Structure formats: C-alpha cells, structure tokens
C-alpha cells in the first residue's frame, strides 16, 4: 500500500533514469518538481487517508467511553503523524517504511510484549479480573433469600417520566394482598384505595402518583432495576427479573478495614493474599473467586524446577527437533525426487502426474489429519486391514512417531514437489549438459550442480517449513493428541511437541493458566529464534559461495 502513496518519483519513474538506491541521498528538489501528480495516485491517496481517518474515529469512541486516555493519545498521535507524512512532500524513505513498521508493531511486537508481560502474572481461570471484580462476585454469589420471607409480585414504576423518573418497586404480597412501595429509602405501605391490583397476575397495574412501566420499558432501565435495593430489617428486597422480588441477604461482605471477606452466618473470615490473588481463611480455605496479580518469576521457576514440567522437557525437545527435521527433510527428499523424475525430458504425461501429485495439497489438512487418524486405528483402520497387520500404531511410542511422520510426509511432499519443480526450471539445462560433456555421471552432476543450485533457492523455504513444523499443533492434536502416554505420567506423551505439551500444561488441567502458558511459550520462542538465526546465517554463507 505504500507505493502509490509515495507520490512523486515511484510509479512514474521515467525510463532510463538510474533507479534510486536505498540509502543514497538524493537531492530531490529537482526530481520532486518534475514528478507529475497522476489522478490515480491522488485518488488512491485520498481514499487511503480517508480510511485512516475513518478507522481512527471508529476506534476513538470506545476508547473515550472506557476512559483510556493514553490509548486515545497514541491513536491521535499516530493518525496525525500519518497525515503529516503523506501530505508533506518530504521524508520519502519514511513513506515506504512507516506502514510496514506500524503493522510490525501491531501484529508482532505488541503480541510478543503482551505474552511476555502475561508470563509474570497468575492470569488464568479464577484469576482473570481485578480484585474489585472478585469482591463483587463474592458478594453477589452469597445473596440468599431470607428464610421464611415473602416472595413479592413486582411492578416497576417511576415517579414521573418512564425513561428518566426515579424508580420505585411496587410490591404486592400474594398472601396478605398488601401493597408496598419500595425505594432506596425503605418500604412504605400503600393504601389499598390508591392502587389497582390485577387479580390474574397479582401485580400492581396502577397506583396514584406513580407511572407503572411495562416489561419493555422496565427492561430499558435494567441496570437501575438491578441496582435498586430496598433495605429492610432482615436484609434487602431485590428484584428477581422484572415481575418478582424477594427479600435477600448477602451472607458475605468485604471489609476494607481488615482487607478481608466476612461471612455473617458462620463468622468465618478470609483475608486477602495479594501474592496469590485470593482470599484465604486461617485454615487455608480459599474463596474460588480470585483476581489477577503479578507473581514475579514464579512461573519461570515453576518451569525450571517442577519435575513434572522440567523432567520430560528435554526428551520432548529432542523429539520436537526430530519431528520438525523429519517432517521437513522427508517431504523435501520425496518432493525433490518426484520433481526430478518429472523434470526429465524423457518423461511423458508430466502434466497428468503433476495434477495427481498436487491432490493431497489441495485437500484441507484438518480433514485429512482426522482421516489418517482413523486409518491408523488398530482394528478398524485401513492401514492394518490393507496390509493384514495388527500394529497398535498410536499405542506404541515408536510406531506412533513413525505414523505421524508418515502423515506429515503425505501432507507435505506436494508443496516441496511444487517449489522444487519451480526451482529446477530456473536452472539452465546448459549447466547439466556441460557436466555431462565433461564426463560426469548423472549422480555427480546432480550432486555438484543441481542440488547446490536448488538449495540456494529452497533453503529459506526449508527453514520456514522447519519453523512451521516445529510448532505444528494440528499435526499432533488431530492425530495422536500427543500420545501414547506412559502409564505413570499422563502429562507428557511420546509424540508431544513442546507446543502441544504447553497446551496441555496450560489448559489441560484445572482450567486455563495463561501465565504459565505464556512462560513456556517464551522458552519456545527463544529456542525457535535461536535455531532460525543460526540457519539464516548459514544460508547467507551458502549464498555467498554460490552466487
């Protein structure tokens, strides 16, 4: 999107002029004055800048509503900066770099930073919100009906205008037929002469001095209805929906003085533990509703010291490498072999074969993984039935590993075949012909000419494929689910990748633990980043050798 925005000097480069090299300072005053402004360029510019402004305004309202002034400031500064950049004629390099940088920050840097910051918290089930949220949840969930109290029929009314007037509960007692008006000030008995009570529903339908709301009107003021609590001697009358009310009492209340929650029925107290983000009683009992707190390096030390996590970590890491290398290597070998075979000029009907070979790639891999899982079933699977075997594929560690690699091979080779075919066609035939003139065998010529040239083109793709397979969740979760598991350790299986293992640790038991998951993913990120950095460095060396 940046090219048309840059205005002068890009699309309209006059032929024959030296292409501008990056980093080379240009005295662009002359160039700028010469570059014509095309209608298309202008329209594109206007539309894109209009979009930017539109998105900014669209994003601003929720920010204002939530009072995120820092966010609003960032939004305003970014938008103003973008307008300045593309309306001014200077800062040509920035015009190219800024969009990509913004996307990089939004979709790469921010998630990484967010993950990293989550790793230092106990964010997870039971610890999702703030302490205030937890207190509200504890208090509302302890509201119980006062034993033996009356269930009232409720009509919601206002004094004055239905939309703005202050709310009043008109309560009729179904047994005594008495009618009360209740608001935050308390309960008042109304004179039977002033009210009309429906004999059918038992609800007040009209009352002197009040406007009775219908359900639609009342539901429009739902928050106020829920918030209205009529104090009584034993507790308070609360609405239960829009047609009934009950006298309830919150058994548990938060006391800011002792920073604890007290139960008025049992007298038990739970004190806030800011380190754990929970209310804990003297006997160690926790209230289920907790809140999110910073736990420092606790998650990191858990990963390193918990024997359940750290003991299988290195075994899993080794298999993870084997899986990624195996998936990439075998698919590459098979794909390349087929590409070579079809590349041979003596081969007939190559197009037909190519279409046939692409088929596995054209099918959705999700569905194919599930089909393969069923094909490896011991008793009902196609693999065993076809070959007359009785192998418990996913039941044994090594057979399960072989099975997932076979599935990966089937799913992945068409891609390697495609890219290898493309790369092969880019290698001039003269080179191989020259080697055969020199008396090289086909194998020698392949080894000395074709393969190195292929690798120059395909190395980045192989690295990408490795990185992808290193974290290939689907390939495992849809087939073996990480199994088979040793009888004495249900948390780590023979085909688990680090990522599926993390998933199980974080979400498999006792609800979601995002903090721990973020910590393990930081470890994985470090490993993949190191591997990629080393391989790219090697690739660069290789390119220098052959180019």
């Amino acid at each position, binding site marked *: 999107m940046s090219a048309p925005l840059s205005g002068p000097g890009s699309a309209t480069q006059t032929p024959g002029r030296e292409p501008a090299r990056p980093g080379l300072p240009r005295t662009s005053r002359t160039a700028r004055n010469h570059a014509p*402004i095309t209608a298309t360029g202008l329209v594109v510019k206007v539309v894109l800048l209009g979009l930017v402004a539109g998105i900014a305004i669209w994003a601003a309202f929720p920010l204002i509503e939530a009072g995120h002034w820092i966010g609003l400031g960032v939004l305003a500064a970014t938008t103003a900066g973008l307008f300045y950049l593309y309306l001014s004629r200077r800062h040509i390099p920035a015009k190219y770099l800024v969009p990509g940088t913004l996307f990089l920050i939004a979709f790469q840097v921010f998630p990484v930073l967010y993950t990293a910051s989550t790793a230092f918290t106990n964010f997870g*089930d*039971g610890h*999702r919100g703030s302490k205030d949220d937890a207190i509200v949840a504890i208090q509302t*969930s302890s509201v119980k009906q006062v034993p033996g109290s009356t269930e009232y029929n409720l009509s919601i009314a206002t004094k004055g205008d239905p939309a703005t007037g202050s709310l009043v509960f008109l309560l009729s007692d179904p047994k005594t037929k008495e009618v009360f008006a209740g608001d935050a000030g308390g309960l008042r008995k109304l004179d039977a002469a002033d009210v009309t009570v429906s004999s059918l529903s038992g609800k007040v339908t009209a009352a002197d001095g009040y406007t009775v709301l219908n359900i639609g009107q009342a539901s429009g003021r*739902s928050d106020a209805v829920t918030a209205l609590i009529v104090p009584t001697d034993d507790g308070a009358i609360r609405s239960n*929906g829009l047609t009934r009310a009950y006298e*309830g009492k919150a058994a548990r209340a938060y006391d800011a003085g002792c920073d604890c929650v007290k139960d008025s029925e049992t007298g038990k107290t739970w004190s806030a533990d800011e380190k754990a983000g929970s209310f804990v009683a003297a006997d160690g009992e926790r209230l289920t509703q907790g809140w999110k707190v910073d736990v420092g390096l606790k998650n990191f030390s858990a990963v390193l010291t918990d024997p359940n996590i750290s003991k299988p970590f290195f075994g899993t890491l080794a298999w993870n490498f084997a899986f990624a290398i195996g998936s990439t290597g075998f698919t590459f070998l098979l794909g390349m072999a087929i590409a070579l075979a079809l590349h041979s000029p003596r081969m007939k009907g190559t197009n037909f074969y190519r279409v046939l070979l692409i088929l596995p790639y054209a099918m959705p891999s999700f569905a194919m993984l599930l089909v393969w899982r069923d094909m490896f079933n011991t008793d009902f699977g196609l693999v065993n039935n076809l070959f007359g075997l009785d192998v418990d594929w996913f039941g044994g560690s090594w057979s399960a590993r072989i099975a997932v690699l076979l599935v990966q091979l089937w799913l992945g080779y068409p891609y390697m075949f495609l890219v290898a075919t493309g790369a092969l066609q880019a290698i001039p035939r003269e080179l191989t012909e020259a080697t055969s003139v020199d008396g090289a065998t086909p194998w020698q010529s392949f080894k000395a000419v074709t393969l190195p040239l292929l690798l120059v083109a395909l190395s980045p793709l192989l690295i990408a494929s490795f990185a992808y397979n290193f974290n290939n969740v689907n390939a495992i979760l849809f087939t073996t689910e990480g199994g088979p598991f040793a009888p004495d350790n249900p948390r780590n299986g023979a085909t688990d990748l680090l990522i599926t293992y993390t998933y199980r640790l974080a979400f498999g038991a006792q609800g979601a633990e995002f903090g721990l998951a973020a910590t393990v993913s930081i470890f994985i990120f470090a490993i993949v980043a190191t591997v990629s950095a080393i391989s790219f460095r090697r690739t660069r060396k290789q390119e220098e050798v052959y180019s």
Partner: protein
Amino acid sequence: MRIRTAGVVAVLGLALAASGCGDSGSDDKPAADQSAKATGGKLVIWADDKRTAALKPFAEEFGKENGVTVEVQAVSKDLQTNFVTASQQGSGPDVVVGAHDWIGNMVQNGAIDPVQLPAEQKSGFNETAIKAVTFNGQLYGVPYATENVALIRNTELAPEAPKTIEDLVATGKKLKAEKKATEILCLQSGQNGDAYHIYPLYTSGGGNLFGTTANGDYDPKDLGVGKPESIAAFQKIAKLGEKGDGALKRSITPENAISTFTGKKCAFLVSGPWAVADAKKANIKYDISPVPGFAGGKEAQPFVGVQAFYVAAKGKNKALAQEFVTNYVTKPELAVALYKAEPRPPALTAAFDQVKGEDADLAKFSEAGKNGQVLPAIPAMAAIWDPFGKAEAAIIGGADPAKTITAAGKTIQGQIK
C-alpha cells in the same frame, strides 16, 4: 499547485472521515430508533448450534410479548471458554445455555450470578437436576434437560438384557464365535480413554472420584482416585481389557463406537440419548437398559449431566435475563420444544410427563440414570478428566492398574489447588 493538492487531499480526507463517522452514527441511529419503539431492552442469548435453532422461535415470542429485542447467537465451539473470556471483557451475552459441570469454572471467574427460584417452582423440577445446578449452596442455573449413558443393545443379536457385565461378555463372546459380531462391547475409549463412559464400571468396581462433605457436596480435598478402592475397580476393568476378555479396547473411539454398533458389528453400546437417532436411522431393533455392573459388585452408577440456562453476571440487561430464565424457561412448552430439537429427557417434570407417552426410550434412559451420580461441578473436576482417561486407556491396554492409578491420583492431586 502543491498547496492545492494538499488542500484537496485534506478536504476529501475529511469528507471521507466524516462519512466514516456518519456510518457509525447511522449504525447507532436505527438501534436508538428501535429502542425507542421497543422501549429499550435487548436480551442476548448464547447457545450451541442445535439449541439455537430450537430457542429462536421462543425467544422471538418472548420478545414480542414484552416489547423487547431478543437475539439468540450460536457459538458452535468452546462455548464455555468463549463465554468466560467475553464476559471478562464486557462483551458477553445476558444468558448462556450449557452443561452444569461448567458452573464451577464460571463461578470462580465471576461470570454467572445465582438464580432465585421460589420453592414451588423448584419443586416442579427433577430433584437430581436441581441438585446438579446447586453449587456452594446456591442455585446457579435453571435446568431444562438431563442426560446419562445407558446400555443400548441390538435386540436381534441379544434379546435379553444382561444382568451383569459377565453375562454381557459371555453373550458377546458367543456372538463373536458365531461370527454374528466382531466386537463384544462398544464402549468408547480411544488412546486417551474416556472417563465419562467408563464411570458406571468404575463405580460398580467400588471406585469414586471425590468423597462428600457433610452437606452432600463433593469434597475436592477427599480425592478417591489412587485409593485402594479405585485400584480394585481398575483391576476388574483390566480383566475386561485387551489382555483379558477383549471387551474394552482402545481401538473403539468416540468416532467409531456408535457407527460400529449401527453397523451391527457389536451387540452392545454404552452411550447416551444422542446415539438413539443414529440407531433409528440405521433401522436397528434396539432396547435400552441400565449399564450392568460386575457380578457381586456395587451398583453401576452413570454420571448424570444437566443442561441449564445461566444468567451472566456481567450482562448488560440482567433484570431481563432473570425474567427470561426464571419465568419463561420454566414453562413446559419450551422444555418440550428443546426436547424435540435433541431428544434428552426434560428436567421439568411436567414436560417429561408430556413427552414420556410418545417416546418410550426416554423413560428407559431416565430409569438407567435413576441411581446415577451427578457429574461434579466443582472446579477440581477439570483436573480429573485427562489423567483419569489416560490411566483408563493404559490399563485397558494392559498396564499395571496399581501403578497407573497411583500415578494418576498423584497427578490429579498436584493439580487441585
């Protein structure tokens, strides 16, 4: 020229921005108009695909009757997780429909509020269902259907309902020898086990998951897995496994258990009401009886699960949500319609009696669940499923029960906070 271009760009940009702004404004406007017409409230309900279809007509009727807008939104995957996450962000629904074993997690995340049902309304429900939605002494949902597994048998292959598991194995072995079936029993396990389906056998063998506190709630501090009773239960289960009778097999998975039964490859299937539709479609003559226990063992108790409506704690229209859940969901007509969308026994006694006559299977499933145990809703239950299932699979495959179950118990204990 330069200034002119910049000017044009700025003006057009502003115009577009204004139109963008106008868009969002016009988005708000109809809503405002509508609310003026409908006088306000909007109720948003989240349910899974099947129930959304059944709920829609009733939700619309409720909206029309009361002059409010009701939206039923289908969440086809991970409804509970999505609900908890969305409600944390304040973008959740007002009402959510789901299984009762979600309650523990939804409560610990402050996502749902207790429901106040008057005693006479409560008494209209199946007692087990009310017990299931009660958590920490509070009622958290209004139940509408119950479900449990039973033994479904092909009456052409096995005319008599087996009294014990041993009877069942004997019949199954005979059928296998006569080449009338290839499997003894279709009880799904897979490589990672299935705690829900094996549970009747586990209880018959004497095992339990949690002890109970004085008031009858499950006690997460008293874990039954790993105790001698649980090991004894799994020793009995091991005898049915691949190294024993071969009645339990890891190759029978959640995906192929029902289809193997409808394909007449096994005479017995342990499954729930959801399997009946498939059996009918395949024209199988079937009958339903309780899952039998071990000879001389305890009663085989299946898990009883309950589907319920919950009021979201952070919904935008709580009063309306309470109104809908306590006064509208409790109507028998709605329960019958939900039953027709998916045939699970209604939790409302009146609705159950109404459909019982037309569907004999219902009574049989309900009979099979009579002695069942309510699926624990405590958050600690989340720690059970995975290790318990894997231990089951390992034991079916021939692993040593004592060692495996002790390890599983340890893992579960370590997960329970």
